[in-house]
């Protein structure tokens, strides 16, 4: 039975997290010596669809049409479930993106499947079982969850599995299942996406500021550092609670959990709630004037110093590095 992967797009383009999900699903399919079928819904061009073969899809089901141009979880779940039935796929993989979190649970119900959300590693498929490692307690722990149902849905946390290029046929086939009008009752009025900024959950590098920066007027240097590194901006809870930065940048236990390659924390002491949201970052750099700040205990690199002196120096050091590279 093949593995099915849902390949999410934004404005007709696949994102890195989509290719991560394809590579991850390919590895699961290899393990059980089966094929990988991808399903794309929306307006994706031929050149982009062809990329799915490059990351391991043997076949691509392409669902288009005005009604399905924008994401509606009810309708998309119905289409993906139909595809799973048509292909007799018993494992469905998707990205644990904002949209994925609206889709995976619905797919679970439709397919009578156990759902492992937020997977961080390949499942253990030994002895005919399937056990998935996922984040729990807001990043403070992992849970190993066994899916005991015949059908299974797995959503993968962005940045937790490396994109792998493999040559697969990636044959594109049109797919147009019936959709109930009731599944289309949601109307998308407006999509606002800032194209000049890196999106926080997908970012390779995150630059984050805390109360140590003293006020929203001091974010200029943080933004400059982020721009220079192609990084997304983040902040601690007190900062978003004070209205210095938007809630969408709040990283931590009650905000967004991130797992970038590099997390730079500036003027953040490292309360347990904040650490929960960043603990799966690969490399953590802490800049804080208080040598006793708890964040240093979980950091890889640290600078004890005043952010207002260190950050401008860091900006010029990175400029020098870039000029010499």
């Amino acid at each position, binding site marked *: 039975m093949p593995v099915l992967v849902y390949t999410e797009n934004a404005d007709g383009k696949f994102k890195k997290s989509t290719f991560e999900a394809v590579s991850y699903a390919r590895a699961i399919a290899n393990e059980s010596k089966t094929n990988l079928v991808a399903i794309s819904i929306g307006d994706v061009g031929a050149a982009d669809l062809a990329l799915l073969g490059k990351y391991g899809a043997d076949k691509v089901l392409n669902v288009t049409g005005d009604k399905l141009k924008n994401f509606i979880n009810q309708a998309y779940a119905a289409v993906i479930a139909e595809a799973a039935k048509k292909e007799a796929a018993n494992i469905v993989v998707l990205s644990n993106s904002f949209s994925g979190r609206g889709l995976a649970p619905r797919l679970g119900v439709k397919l009578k499947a156990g759902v492992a959300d937020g997977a961080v590693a390949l499942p253990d498929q030994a002895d005919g079982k399937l056990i998935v490692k996922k984040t729990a307690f807001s990043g403070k*722990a992992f849970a190993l969850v066994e899916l005991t149902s015949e059908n299974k849905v797995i959503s993968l946390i962005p940045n937790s599995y490396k994109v792998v290029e493999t040559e697969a046929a990636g044959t594109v086939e049109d797919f147009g299942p019936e959709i109930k009008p009731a599944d289309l009752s949601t109307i998308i009025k407006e999509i606002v996406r800032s194209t000049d900024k890196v999106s926080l959950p997908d970012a390779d590098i995150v630059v984050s500021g805390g109360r140590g920066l003293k006020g929203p007027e001091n974010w200029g240097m943080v933004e400059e550092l982020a721009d220079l590194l192609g990084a997304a901006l983040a902040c601690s809870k007190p900062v978003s609670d004070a209205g210095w930065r938007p809630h969408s940048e709040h990283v931590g236990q009650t905000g967004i959990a991130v797992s970038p390659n590099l997390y730079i924390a500036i003027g953040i002491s490292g309360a347990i709630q904040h650490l929960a949201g960043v*603990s799966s970052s690969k490399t953590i750099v802490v800049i804080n004037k208080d040598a006793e700040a708890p964040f240093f205990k979980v950091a890889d690199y640290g600078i004890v110093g005043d952010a207002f002196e260190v950050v401008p*120096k860091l900006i010029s050091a990175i400029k020098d590095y870039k000029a010499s590279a």
Partner: protein
Amino acid sequence: MKILVCISNVPDTTTKITFTDNNTQFNTSGVQFILNPYDEIALARAIELTDGGSGSVTVINVGEVATEPTIRKALAIGATDAVRVNAKAHDAWFVAYQVAQYVKSNPFDLILTGRESIDYNGSKVAAMLAELLDIPSVSIIKKLDIDGNTATVEREIEGGKEVLTVPLPIVAGTAEGVAEPKIPNMRGIMSARTKPLTVIEPATVETFSNVIRYETPAPRGQVKLVPADDVAKLVELLHSEARVI
């Protein structure tokens, strides 16, 4: 308008997470349990939407008797009445199924949950419940307004937001921005003791997933400190040692 708010009883955000029984059970010893912070937002918005007396806010929890202090807290904040499904919350599917059974015989115009619980972080109950009820759902919302039979919702997406309208009834998962959590006042705390809390028994349902065991993240090595006057050294380490830039 009749609103249902699904609430979870979760460890306080400052809890150090440890496990017992060969890492198969969460160690609840000495742990303070609270109303899930995202559910507090849902509850606050539900109370705002029914402010002025038009309608009611029911809270529902799937949990054993130990969750009742958290349910009473929700009543103290301003919920009208409460339901507890008397069972351990095995997983999101179990919880969604129990709530769906209740809603099928007690319909609501609007069902709210927090965007996720801060213990298992599944973000699953809202959409599973909606699927079981065959109604729309919106996950991770930052704004919610109701006009007649239509909800206008702002949903978070990567790098932006989406504004959508959807006909009631719906299930929505609330995040920061929807409302400010409310603190119970003395009158609320007093009245919470006498507000109705109905206990119902769970329906039987198939199990699709089990937690085998837990792991805690591997500790990081000792932090490497770089002198504040040698920032270039940090850039070099990030490039040649960590290989992240």
